[in-house]
Structure formats: C-alpha cells, structure tokens
C-alpha cells in the first residue's frame, strides 16, 4: 500500500474562480479519507485529478514516491493502479456481472484459472456469486453498487476512489452499504478516498475527514476532532448542528469551555465577546440552569428539537425528551462549548 500526497494543487476551468485552490493534504497508506463539502466545493474535481481524469494546473500529486501529476509529468489513469466506484456505478451494459468484474484482469492479461478464481473471490466478497451471469440492467441499485465494488477489489489496486457512491440509494440501503464499505476497507487495507456531501456518512466511515469549501481545504482530522474542535466558523457551520453564541468569556487560555465558564458568561459578565460553538446535545435541562424561552418545538420521532432564546438574545438549539409548548420557559445548563 502507498500513501497519497497532494501538494499545493490548483485546478481552473476557464476564467472562473478555480475549482480547487492550493490544496495540500497527505494521506497515510491504508487510510480511509472522506472528502466532505457542499456540492460545487471542488471535492469531485480533486478526486478526478487523483484518478487522472483531470490534470492539475499547479501542484504535484504523488502516490508513494511516484509522481502521478506535476509540472511536465502525467501518468494516465490506466497506469495508476487505482480503482473507482462511480456515482452512476458505471457498469458496462454489454458485459455480464462477471465480465464487468473481470475486465481489469482481462486488460492485465490474466486468464484461465487465475482469472476465474479471482473473479469468483471478488464476487464472493460482495455476496454476488449467484448473479455472475446476469446483465447489469437486471440488478437493483444496491446490487449494482456491490458489483462496482467487486470490480474495484479484483485487481488489488493501491488506492480506491469513491465518488458519492451512496447518493443514488435509498436510506435503508445506505446503512447496509456503509457496513459493506467498512468491511471492505478492513479486509483490503487499501487506501480509500471517499467523496461525499453527507457528513453522517463521512463521520461513520472515515478515519480522517477533510472538509472542503469553495475549492479550499478548511480542516482535516479525525471525525470527532472535526466535530468537537472545528478550526473556524466555516467548519462549524458545515459540520453538525449547533449555534455560535457571542459570549464574554473573559481571558481563558483554553479553547475548550466548561459549563461553569459558559454559565458565568451567560450570567451577564462584561468584557470582549468571543464566538462560542454550542452543540444541541450539550444543552441539558437543569433546574439550577439559565432561563430560556421556548420559541419552537418540533417532534423528530426519537425526541423533540427545541429552539430556545436567552434573555441576552442568544438563540440555541436543544433536544428534549418531552414536549414544551412555544412560549413556555425552561431552565437549562450548557455542558461545554468550543471557542472558535
């Protein structure tokens, strides 16, 4: 396995604002990286540059020590030893399931028993052995997805790229495919790079999440890091629910704020204001907490989602096991906050 390093990569389409600007990231061998960002943020362009479907205008992309793309250098997709799961799955309609899966081997000149054995194992890994002679058109979305995955697996690529592979599946199927991806990563140990705009998908699957916006890398780190300790307001706004309060927190060195510090700030202390991120799950009912007016209360199935308003004008989202009528008053304390 080899790691991927992306150094200062920029890609422009026409005279518009660049699709990707000065992107640098080093991906460890065997990592599962999620590229997360809203649509149009350049994450797919970056993935296509890794695959070799686009050439960077500036910067260098390396796989291990090998330069894939850089000034005057370019390795075409067919020579990169990568594989990709496309959003549309990209199964060839004129080949059977087995033909699709075996094509990378066929191109590499592998035939006979070795071919049959490896195709068989790949199909077995995604539980599609019984469908080997079917046409892709006869399969359901989830089955097509698994065939596409088997095609990635078959030639033991160094890097597997996944372009929003779950976007076209229904919710129920997504959960089971997430499980399949996780197993797949554990089994193969391949470096996987996964593009998605769905943060819960990214959090659930990846060991590293890279958050992108407007062509730039905002922050990269472990999922809980990104969630708990966003670098700036943009990342906080993109990841998870929550509110940014302007609070006079005083001179605290740590960015992590505990309940007491926040309670003090809400209590009406004077001083310079700072932006503090509060996650809704950190707002807890507490008879001794601050007073909030309930502005809105929506039933979400497993709980109620509240919108609260503090006397200082601060707006806060919270969860509650029971219903509160709008206009009612509740007392809550805030468990922790993160200074942006």
């Amino acid at each position, binding site marked *: 396995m080899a790691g991927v390093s992306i150094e200062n990569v920029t890609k422009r389409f026409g005279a518009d604002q660049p699709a990707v600007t000065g992107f640098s990231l080093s991906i460890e061998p065997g990592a599962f990286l999620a590229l997360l960002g809203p649509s149009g943020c350049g994450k797919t362009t970056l993935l296509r540059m890794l695959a070799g479907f686009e050439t960077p205008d500036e910067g260098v992309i390396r796989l291990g020590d090998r330069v894939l793309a850089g000034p005057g250098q370019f390795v075409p997709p067919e020579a990169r030893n990568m594989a990709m799961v496309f959003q*549309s799955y990209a199964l060839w309609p004129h080949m059977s399931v087995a033909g699709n899966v075996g094509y990378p081997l066929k191109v590499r000149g592998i035939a006979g028993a070795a071919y049959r054995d490896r195709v068989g194992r790949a199909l077995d890994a995604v539980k599609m052995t019984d469908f080997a002679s079917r046409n892709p058109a006869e399969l359901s979305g989830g089955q097509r997805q698994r065939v596409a995955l088997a095609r990635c697996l078959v030639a033991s690529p160094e890097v597997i790229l996944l372009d929003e592979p779950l976007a076209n599946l229904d919710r129920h199927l997504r959960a089971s495919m997430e499980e399949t991806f996780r197993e797949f990563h554990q089994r193969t140990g391949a470096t996987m790079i996964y593009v998605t705009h769905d943060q819960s998908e990214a959090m659930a699957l990846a060991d590293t999440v890279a958050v992108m916006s407007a062509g730039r890398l905002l922050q990269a780190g472990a999922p809980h890091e990104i969630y708990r300790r966003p670098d700036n307001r943009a990342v906080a706004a993109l990841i998870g629910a929550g509110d940014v309060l302007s609070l006079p927190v005083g001179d605290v060195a740590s960015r992590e704020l505990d309940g007491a510090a926040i309670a003090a700030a809400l209590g009406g202390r004077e001083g310079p204001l700072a932006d503090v991120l509060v996650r809704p799950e950190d707002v807890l009912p507490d008879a001794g907490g601050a007073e909030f007016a309930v502005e809105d209360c929506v039933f979400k199935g497993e709980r109620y989602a509240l919108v609260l308003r503090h006397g200082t004008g601060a707006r806060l989202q919270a969860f509650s096991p029971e219903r509160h009528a709008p206009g009612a008053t509740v007392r809550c304390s805030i468990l922790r906050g993160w200074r942006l």
Partner: protein
Amino acid sequence: MRSRPTRGSHPAWLPPLLLCLVALFCVLPAGRLLLGAARALADGGAGTILTDAATWRAVRNTLTTSLAGMAISLVLGGVFALTLVLSDARGKLAFGFAFMLPLMIPPQVTALAWIQLTGPSSPLLNALGLAPPMGSPQPLYSLSGIALLLGVQHAPLVFLTMRASLAALPADGVEAARLSGASPFRVLADIVLPLALPGIIAGAAIAFVSGVGNFGIPAMLGIPASIFVLPTFIYSRLASFGTGMLGDMAMLSVLVALIAFAGILVQQLAMRRRDYRTIGLSGPLAGFRLGRFRPAVETALAAIILVILVAPLTALVATSLVPAYGVKLSAATASLAAYREILFVQSVTITAFRNSFFLATTAALALLAITVPLAWWLRQRRGAIAIAVETMIEIPYALPGIVLAVAFILLFAAPLPFVKISIYATIWIILLAYISSFMAVSLKPLASAFSQTDPALEEAASLAGAGFWRRMRDIVLPMIAPAAGASAIMVFLFAVNELTISALLWSAGTQTLGVAVFNLDDGGAASLAAALSVLIVGMVFVLMIALELLAGRLPRGAIPWRA
C-alpha cells in the same frame, strides 16, 4: 466540470487528423465556391448573368414555388401534427409512418408518380375512365404543380418539428388552463399554439429551404414546360454550355445558398426562442377528446394519406405494369416486362444499380470511419472548438445539392495538384461529394448516442487499465454499435436516393439510380422509369422498417422521423 480534455486519453495525432478531414470535406468546397464567385465578379463576367432576364425569372420562380410549397407543407404537416399529438385519434403510429414516407421517397420518384397519376395517359385514370382527353396538357407541368409537390414532399418536415415542439409542451400548463375553465379550442388558441409557434416557424423555414434546394421535382415537372427554378436553371446552363460558364454558375450557386441560408437563419432564430421546456413538466398531453367527431377526423386523415401517398404510388405501380405505351391496363394486359428489362436487360439501369449501391455503401462505411472517432472526440472536447467543428459539418449538408455539386466541379475540374490525376467524370468525385454532403447525417445518431452514454463507463475502463485502443474496442464500439448501424443505414438511404449531386457530376458509366429514373422518363420510357421507381420505393420502405426494428436499441434522436 467534466469537459476538460485529459492528456494521454487519446493519441495526439487524432484531433489534428479529424480537423483536417472536416476542413477538407466541409470547408474546402464552400470556400472554393466563394472564391469562384468572387473571381467571376471581379472579372466583370457578372454583368451578363446577373442582368439576364432568365436569371431573375428563375429567382422569381424559385421563391414562388418554395413559398407556396411551404404554405401547403404548413397546412398538411400542421393538421397531422396537431391531430396526432393532441387528440385521441386512433392509429397514430401508422398515420405517422405513412405521413413520413413522402420525405424519404426521392423527389424525382414522387414527381414521376404524380405525373402518372394525373394527365391524359394516366393508366389509373384510364382504367377508371376518368382521364382527361388525349392531347390535353399535363396539369402538373406548371408552377402550381411544382409548388404542390414541393408541399407534399416537405410536409413531413413541418410535421416533425411541430410534433417535437408540441411534445415538449408543459402538460401541467395545459391541465391548469383546462381547470381554469378554458375549452379545448381556447386551450389550443391561447396555450398550445403560442407555445408551439417557434416550432411552427422553424418547420416552415426548413420546408422553404428544402423547396429552394429541391431539384428532382422542378426537373421532372418544370423542364418539359421550360419553367426553370434556380437549381434547374444552373443544371440546364451547365448541360448546354459545359464548364465554360463555371464562374457564372458559381455566382448563381452562391445566390441559391444565400436564399437557403436566409431560411436557415429564420429557423435558428425561431428555435433559439424555444426554451419553454424548462418551465413545468412536459409529458404526454392527454388532452383533446374528439368524441363523436373521431371517426370523421380519422377518415379525413386516411383520405389525405390516400391522396398524397397511396394514389400516386398506385399510379406508379400501374404504369410499371403497362406492357407498352398506350396499351390500356387491365388484369389481362398487366406484365412484369419492365422489371425484367431494368433488372436484367438494360445495361444503363444495371450499371446504375451497381453505381448507387457502391456509392451508398462506400460513403456510409467511409463516413463511419470518420464520424465515430469524431463524435467521440467532440464529446470529450466540447467548448468553442467543438461547436465550430459541428457548424462546419453542417455547412455541406445545409447547402442545396446543386450548390455542392458546382463546388465540387470547381474543385476537381482541373487535375489534382502534384499528382496530376483528374477525378472529374469518374465515380470518385460523386463519392467525395456524398461524403461531404452526408457527414452531418452520419454524425447525428452517433453524437446522440455519445451524449446519452455516461462518460464514467469509459473512465471506469481507463482505471481498470485499458488504454485508448483497448477502450475503443471493448467499451465504446460495442455500446454505440446500434447507433453506428442506424448511421450507416441513414447515409445509405440518403445516398441511394440522391439525384441532385449526381445529376451534375455523372458521366457515361457513372450514372446513379436517381439519374437513371430521370433519364428514362426524359427519354419517354415511362414504364421503365416507373418500374425502377417502384423498386426504389420498395427499398426505401425496407430500410425504414429496418431502422424501426432497430429503434428500441437506439438513443433518442437517432432516427429523424421518430419523436
């Protein structure tokens, strides 16, 4: 986002080669024509031809017949499109196919069929006892006759564009109008027709342009009565004065091209306004119930098909069965002698069959070799260069056949430079002109096939390790094979029906089927011409059925007469 070319995704020599081919076949002829016209103008030779009263009579005749023909096409095509798309009349598929047929039947055959239908010697009218007395003039040998047949021939063009624009109407808009209380006729007047107007204008413009460029009909109907439109005027001048008048003819050709391009411009402007599709959901307009009028409407449609298609073709078949000139046709006298004659005896028609089949097959296959990589590359490339290339390919197709033929005479009248070989008066000049003229026909099904296949299919093969040729062989060709088949059949159909280009470029031994029909009729061998025409119509019919059978595997838009 996905349009950028990727280095290494195709051999570096491919784009320059394709650009050269397009330039040679599409830009060079038009350029040579303009040069010829400019030279003639500079030499002052323009004086005689542009002040000649005959020239301006031909211009007037061209405009009169094309505009009147357009009006007839508009009425016929409009009635069929509105009824077949909007109403609940039965047999839509059959009516649509029957109405389309005149477009695919070569114009000289249409003309011959109608000549056999009307006039004193009509076997059909004689058999029915309805023929005008012997010696009375053939009523179709007139400007109105030419206009009528142009109208019938090109009505399917109006039908097609109108049907496409009606099918793209927002169905929910029509439903909303009905719920607002509008009667079906109010909906038609207030919603449907205004929205379909750009399509109607575009269809009319195409019918006009096709009328300006049509050669077969005015040649068969006008030349016997010394009525000339611009294409037949150029043809007869070249026939009587040879290549000495090429400069003048280049100028006249530019004139024809200008009239045609004015029509195309109107069509393009009309189509550009047609972006209603984005509003609302387009869908089947399950609108207008004919109720108790349904049988009457269906009978009227059938009657129109009877008059414009069945009757002329029946007359054609009847004439082909007449044993000798003047013999009255009956079950006892009918004979297949004419068919035997053209298929096995007459060397002229046998050669024509051989030539046309050779030209059509070679043009179709040669074009595939150019247009498959071209369509592939255009999909990769897009952007300004791709649009420029697509426009260049449209030029020779949009040029009336007579104009393209004059351009090719200008190009090849002198021996080729360097090699000193002349292909003038050989079959190769016709082949090159066909390749130029039908490149757009060949490209269309392939371009729509490529636009409807996911580029990811090729990218997946690329990541699987397949290089350019491997991808072409394993992925691209199998996927576009049906469209390539449709492309080849379409070119074959157009080429085997072709008359205008070959009428100017043929010489002894290189006559085509179109030229053979024209010459046989011109020489008074009506039943031989009719028999040959019947065989041509039969062949057209079989090829169209073949395309229909292929249709299920083709991308939308690959076959021009299907919605």
